[in-house]
């Protein structure tokens, strides 16, 4: 009996720091956010705040001046660009690297380098790259023979080019990250399997297609989840580059939230956006997991088929 008590005491004591930290900084505030989202809270003093039901949600969804849909649409566009441009590029690099190339490690290290640089530094650097007067992008384009291709208002100042120009630094920074994950997967494919397939007459691209890619499906899933939820959460780079401008062309939910809080003092509305961000993150994480579950079965079948041939 004494032993049992001792065990219980130990468990509680060992879990205590983590639980206190986790609950006080993450769980409790999120519950509070949910609570505040039903109030018309316009200052940090919560006394006498007015209950307004789902008014915040209603306003967020219908008000043209808040442009929540635009922000959500932008983050969906960013997510789609990440999944359909960034990830294939990473996969391509990982597959190429996985073939046993000379200088593999050097390439790997170079590709991963941008991941380690602070997003603020990268944002400031790309501000200079895009600079309308002296930026390197214009000089490079001019040297290649494209003069005066910069859209009116500058790369980041033009409504139609701004979102692309925000995406490109993200692409530049994170291709290496996804490449690294996929490369680790590619390397984990057993050499015997490759050899067996090649012995059976499979070409390199067939090996990639029928053996390597199905094997690393779980990693691709992780990458897709990271890319999509990352786009939903994206803040730093956009804040540095455009802060959502021009005319909401690069607005995403998190920049909208911060502007609500600290430009308009609308804490209730900020909480509403925060809650929607959480819901969306979980929604997409679950959606992607389900989408990949089906594929996993195919993937398994395929790799088994390749095994048997």
């Amino acid at each position, binding site marked *: 009996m004494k032993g049992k008590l001792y065990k219980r005491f130990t468990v509680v004591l060992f879990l205590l720091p983590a639980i206190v930290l986790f609950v006080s900084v993450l769980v409790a505030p999120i519950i*509070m956010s949910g609570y505040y989202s039903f109030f018309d809270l316009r200052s940090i003093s919560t006394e006498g705040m007015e209950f307004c039901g789902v008014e915040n949600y209603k306003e967020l969804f219908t008000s043209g001046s808040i442009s929540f849909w635009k922000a959500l649409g932008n983050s969906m566009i960013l997510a789609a660009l990440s999944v359909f441009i960034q990830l294939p590029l990473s996969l391509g690099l990982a597959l190429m690297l996985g073939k046993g190339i000379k200088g593999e490690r050097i390439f790997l290290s170079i590709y991963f380098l941008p991941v380690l640089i602070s997003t603020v530094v990268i944002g400031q650097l790309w501000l200079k790259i895009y600079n309308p007067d002296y930026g390197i992008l214009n000089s490079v384009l001019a040297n290649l023979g494209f003069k005066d291709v910069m859209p009116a208002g500058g790369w980041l100042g033009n409504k139609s080019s701004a979102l692309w120009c925000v995406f490109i630094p993200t692409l530049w920074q994170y291709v290496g990250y996804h490449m690294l994950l996929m490369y680790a997967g590619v390397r984990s494919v057993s050499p015997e399997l490759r050899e067996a397939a090649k012995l059976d007459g499979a070409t390199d691209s067939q090996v990639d297609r029928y053996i390597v890619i199905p094997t690393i499906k779980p990693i691709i899933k992780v990458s897709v989840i990271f890319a999509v939820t990352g786009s939903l959460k994206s803040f730093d780079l956009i804040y540095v580059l455009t802060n959502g401008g021009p005319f909401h062309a690069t607005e995403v939910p998190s920049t909208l939230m911060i502007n609500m809080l600290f430009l308009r003092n609308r804490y209730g509305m900020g909480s509403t956006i925060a809650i929607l961000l959480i819901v969306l993150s979980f929604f997409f994480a679950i959606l992607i997991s389900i989408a990949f579950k089906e594929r996993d079965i195919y993937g398994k079948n395929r790799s088994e088929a390749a095994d048997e041939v």
Partner: protein
Amino acid sequence: MAKTEAKPQMKYDLDKYQVKKTNKVARVFIYIGLIVWALIDLFPIYWMFTFSLKSNDEVYGMNVMGLPKHWLWSNYTRALTTGNMPLYFLNSIIVTVAAIAISLVAAMMATYAMTRIVWKGRNLMNSFFMLGLTIPIHASIVPIFITLSKLHMVNSYLSLILPYAAFSLPMAILICTGFMNDIPHELDEAACIDGCGLWKTFFYVIIPLMKPALSTITIYSFLQCWNELMFANVFISKDSLKTLPVGIQALSGQHTTDWGPIGAALVIATFPTLIAYVFLSKKIQESFIAGAVKG
């Protein structure tokens, strides 16, 4: 991603029973592709280094892309003296180190309780912590800000340390669990037979074996905390407490037309990670793989 749906149709053909070698031409293209992306990765960084050492005349037209003609080290002294760069640097170190230390201790203890001690609900507890991996951290910013304001705790190190520690926690627990599951349970049993209680087992058996996990978590959390912008931007308005990301933002506001010092500040902020990367590239890459794949 969903293009490969067709089933492979491979016929067994004895005549073809030979290993296909990688096409030479394809190999050349692979190298070209890899080198092109490497250049795309390196060029902006190279450019950052060069313009940090140039005068405005060179940046503004005389010499846009080349190496600086006159290496203007004074840009660095200006970056270090006009703003409070050394102070921002120090603040970043204080906040990051404290946050990592707290999350490491909390994660190690929690993981030990959840993986080595058998009790009902330990898996549920683990899933509870794992929720933190999907939750966007900004979602908690409003209540934290309100609470901190009421407690008069905005503009303090603690207002950043505690959130950063909490946000590193789920990943730290995840990585810890992976590593701790690799430690054979026989060791615990042996320790128990030798008279160690749960506490002694933790301190004398588990912790010494968790060193690789510690460095992995440290690397992973370091980048998260070192680069964090939103909380630092909102909670800290006092200049003497600003961290590097916020400080650089402020500095670039002061030097909008003077590129050299901004470039120098960017290089200074990047330097510690770059140096660490040169020596630890393999370990750092492994940490990121562990962080993603063990999930």
